[in-house]
């Protein structure tokens, strides 16, 4: 008999104690120890990686703020976004954007919850977008522009620039111009190299000359130091000595050109009459010459140096301009007819004038054209804010506000729906709104004409009709049948439709009857109420489109736009979204087809999938451009964009099919058996059981494919379409923006990244959160 004293029998009656974990196992200190410096090898890796990140980021930020010329972005923003889309149809895109914002907000609320933190971040960002520009304008001073005035040619290296006594500029009425000598720069060559501003060629040459001189000086000092250290082979020593002999330090630039040593006669002339408006003789101690411009238009700055030297003027209120030229009438104006219109835009604030450029003796006065008057030198942060950040924010903040408002409206709308009715209703609306995006997008961007509406109406009618007849056809009593007959008659009253379509209607009525006969084999009962709803729906759809077309003359609501003008982000997104939306059904059908037990179907699908997957997208694009018209000449008339779109669509469908097939294979066979045992037919089993699980299982792959499709659309540039990447190429090819390729690339890279990352993020959330999670037993 075991007793309690037997040590192998024991009962633990102690209350379990709760203890805090040891100090070094939790908290930030533990995190740092465990994640950054767990071993000496990891410590080294941490430091190396941190150093690399730090270097890359600092140099990048330095360039972004100090060096890059973002005018190319602010100025061409519209092109980057929508290419050369017709301005009078732009409202459609805005409306579309708002709808998309609403749909996104709605879906967010339906499927996920956004954290308070995100809301705060968004609101703060939005507030900043509105508050920052005026604050920046108030706090920072206007950037300067420098102009050299000289009586002699200015030389640096092999470049020579003769003095230009006059330079034209534009300004708005009421603006203040001030001009003085830049004494700070004239102190020494070191000071001169610190020049940063919009500067004309001459003053930039002076700066370059000073920089060269200082560089030479530094090199000499370096070689001398090296030679003194005595570390070289005789041959190296010889080379260095030779280099040293070749180097010669010229006299300081400030002295060569006697910068700031003489007086400068400065005048501001009216651009049209060339009458002087203000004048002064400036020397280094005189107060600035100031003038308030009397009217908007052209002015001329006249600057002359009396002696042999040069002077650098520091002006504020005079900024580089860009010339735009277009055919009269292209802007939608009626006034001027024929010829070319020149428009001058000030880069810093988009001030625009069409005043005639001043001429002297029949020649154009040189002007502050952006090409010659780039921002030079290392830009201070304040100039970055004022020149680039504030204008950019001003351009986008209103759109941002509207998008956020609509997004919020969608969010609230969904919550309202799920509270007042049921979450199921909100979910249904959410899915419909998502489905509507590609269709709406296409309709809004391209437009719908009357024929389109009617064709659409006929198609919807046809499908509804067949469905209706299949489900309810044989339950009709004579009353409904008579009504149907009237509907058919109603079509006769719509002239658009009747031309050549009577046969089609008879045909579809025949099909409908067939469907009714097939449907009658189903035993199930349905309520007469649903049947009549369906019937009324058919009726409305069938007649609604054509009636709309007749009464409102649909051709004027959404006229077709010129597909050749589509471009930029708009085109990229259009290709992506239509590509994705179109390839989904096709891809799924291909996947099902490949698994089909019918050998002909599965062979066809397999061959198609394997063929397309074995061919690069470029080939498919070229094929859709060049080969397809050979099949049927009428296909050549299909706009380029659509052919590319179809190419992308069928290309992507093949990949999608393989992904979906993988998903289908991952669904355990028991699922299909259980569904069959419940009496679901083959289509229902696929639709409700296998396909949803298969798609959920391959969400990461599908999203990955969406992302790569999004990026792959950049290939369409090759067939002459100007998507985001294509537009970037054309923008940097303009003379005004030559040399700004880096800025353009960085900008589109950021856009591509923002969208790709968002898609990847959504995909991750879909996998994690309830609504999309594959719930394995």
């Amino acid at each position: 008999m075991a007793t309690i004293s037997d040590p192998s029998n024991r009962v633990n009656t102690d209350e379990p104690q709760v203890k805090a974990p040891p100090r070094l196992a939790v908290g930030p200190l533990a995190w740092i120890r465990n994640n950054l410096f767990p071993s000496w090898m990891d410590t080294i890796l941490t430091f190396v990686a941190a150093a690399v990140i730090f270097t890359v980021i600092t140099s990048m930020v330095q360039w972004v703020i100090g060096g890059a010329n973002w005018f190319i972005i602010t100025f061409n923003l519209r092109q980057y976004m929508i290419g050369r889309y017709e301005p009078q149809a732009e409202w459609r895109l805005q409306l579309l954007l708002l709808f998309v914002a609403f749909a996104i907000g709605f879906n967010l609320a339906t499927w996920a919850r956004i954290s308070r933190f995100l809301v705060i971040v968004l609101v703060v960002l939005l507030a900043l977008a509105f508050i920052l520009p005026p604050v920046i304008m108030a706090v920072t001073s206007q950037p300067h522009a420098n102009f050299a005035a000289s009586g002699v040619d200015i030389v640096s290296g092999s470049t020579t620039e003769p003095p230009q006594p006059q330079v034209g500029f534009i300004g708005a009425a009421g603006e203040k111009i001030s001009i003085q000598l830049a004494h700070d720069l004239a102190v020494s060559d070191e000071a001169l190299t610190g020049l940063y501003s919009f500067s004309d060629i001459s003053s930039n040459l002076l700066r370059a000359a000073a920089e060269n001189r200082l560089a030479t000086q530094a090199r000499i000092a370096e070689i001398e130091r090296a030679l003194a250290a005595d570390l070289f082979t005789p041959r190296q020593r010889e080379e260095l000595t030779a280099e040293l002999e070749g180097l010669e330090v010229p006299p300081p630039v400030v002295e060569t050109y006697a910068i700031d040593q003489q007086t400068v006669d400065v005048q501001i002339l009216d651009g049209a009459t060339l009458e002087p408006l203000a004048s002064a003789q400036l020397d280094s101690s005189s107060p600035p010459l100031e003038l308030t411009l009397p009217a908007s238009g052209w002015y001329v700055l006249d600057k002359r140096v009396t002696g042999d030297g040069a002077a650098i003027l520091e002006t504020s209120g005079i900024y580089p301009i860009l010339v735009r030229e277009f055919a009269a009438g292209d802007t939608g104006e009626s006034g001027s007819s024929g010829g070319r219109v020149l428009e001058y835009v000030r880069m810093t604030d988009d001030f625009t004038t069409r005043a005639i450029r001043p001429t002297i003796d029949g020649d154009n006065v040189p002007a502050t054209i952006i090409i010659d008057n780039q921002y030079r030198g290392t830009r201070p942060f304040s100039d970055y804010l004022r020149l680039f950040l504030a204008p950019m924010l001003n351009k986008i903040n209103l759109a941002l506000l509207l998008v956020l408002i609509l997004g919020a409206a969608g969010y609230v709308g969904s919550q309202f729906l799920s509270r007042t009715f049921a979450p199921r209703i909100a979910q249904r609306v959410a899915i419909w709104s998502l489905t509507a995006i590609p269709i709406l997008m296409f309709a809004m961007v391209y437009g719908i004409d009357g024929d389109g509406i009617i064709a659409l109406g006929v198609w919807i009618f046809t499908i509804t009709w067949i469905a209706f007849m299949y489900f309810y056809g044989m339950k009709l009593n004579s009353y409904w049948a008579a009504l149907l007959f009237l509907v058919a008659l109603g079509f006769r009253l719509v002239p658009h439709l009747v031309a050549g379509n009577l046969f089609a209607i008879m045909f579809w009525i025949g099909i409908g009857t067939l469907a009714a006969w097939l449907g009658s084999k189903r035993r199930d009962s349905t309520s007469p109420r649903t049947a009549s709803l369906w019937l009324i729906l058919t009726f409305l759809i069938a007649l609604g489109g054509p009636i709309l077309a007749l009464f409102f003359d649909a051709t004027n609501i959404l006229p077709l736009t010129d597909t050749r003008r589509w471009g930029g982000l708009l085109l990229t997104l259009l290709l992506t979204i239509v590509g994705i939306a179109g390839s989904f059904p096709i891809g799924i059908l291909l996947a099902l087809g490949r698994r089909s037990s019918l050998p002909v179907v599965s062979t066809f699908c397999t061959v198609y999938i394997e063929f397309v997957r074995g061919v690069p997208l470029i080939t498919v694009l070229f094929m859709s451009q060049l080969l397809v018209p050979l099949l049927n000449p009428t296909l050549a008339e299909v706009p380029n964009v659509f052919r590319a779109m179809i190419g992308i669509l069928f290309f992507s469908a093949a990949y999608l099919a393989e992904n979906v097939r993988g998903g289908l294979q991952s669904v355990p066979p028991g699922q299909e058996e259980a569904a069959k045992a419940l009496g679901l037919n083959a289509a229902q089993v696929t639709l409700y059981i296998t396909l949803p699980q298969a798609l959920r299982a391959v969400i990461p792959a599908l999203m990955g494919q969406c992302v790569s499709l999004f990026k792959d659309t950049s290939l369409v540039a090759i067939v002459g379409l100007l998507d985001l990447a294509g537009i970037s190429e054309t923008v940097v090819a303009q003379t005004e923006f030559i040399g700004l390729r880096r800025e353009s690339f960085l900008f589109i890279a950021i856009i591509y990244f923002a969208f790709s990352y968002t898609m990847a993020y959504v995909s991750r959330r879909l996998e994690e959160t309830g609504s999309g999670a594959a719930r394995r037993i």
Partner: protein
Amino acid sequence: MVNANIQNEEAIIVCKNVCKWFGEFQVLRDVSVEVQPQEVVVIIGPSGSGKSTFIRCINRLEEHQEGQIVVDGMEMGHDVSNIAAIRREIGMVFQQFNLFPHLTVLQNITLAPMRVRHWSREKAETKAMELLNRVGIPEQANKYPGQLSGGQQQRVAIARALAMEPKIMLFDEPTSALDPEMIKEVLDVMKELAQSGMTMLVVTHEMGFAREVADRVLFFDQGRIVEQGTPDYFFESAQHPRTKLFLSQIL
């Protein structure tokens, strides 16, 4: 043979000389059974003897190649509408539950009544809640299968099959994938179902259940029915050496 007074006209399931092959291998050899309405038939036999294959033939998850299967007066053949009609009358519960993981418990149960019987959502959901009450887990209606224990999942699976209001229920080892403490809750549901008069075909190794509930026990070996009889006869005085061997191994 016992139950000699069974008349063909009354039988709800009639199998005559059913044969089936997987490739060259004959799984079912001339299986002939008749099942009366409200009868509970338990099928036992060693693994691989064709029990699953046989009951899966009854609702055409497997196709038999020879012989005749008539369910509720309808011949199971290649006629698609017959198959659909028969499946509507037969509910099936699997060893692995086979709940649909992407649907909630409620959706699992209402799917088939709404899509196949075209019930309204309200009707289907009322019925589903009724059944969940019957199997004892009404509070799990809005959870997903992955959130339930094995026993609860199997009870949902039973409710799902019952939602179609079948005349016959097939069970293929419904408790074999369950932890011991969950077996009882499932068996209780099945007993209650049997008492309510459902026609049931149950493949199981739960001899206690067979003894208590079964009207008849079939013993399968190598694709044939080797011996059958009432539980009393079967467990007390089985004749065939295979049966005796099998019983001695598991009892």
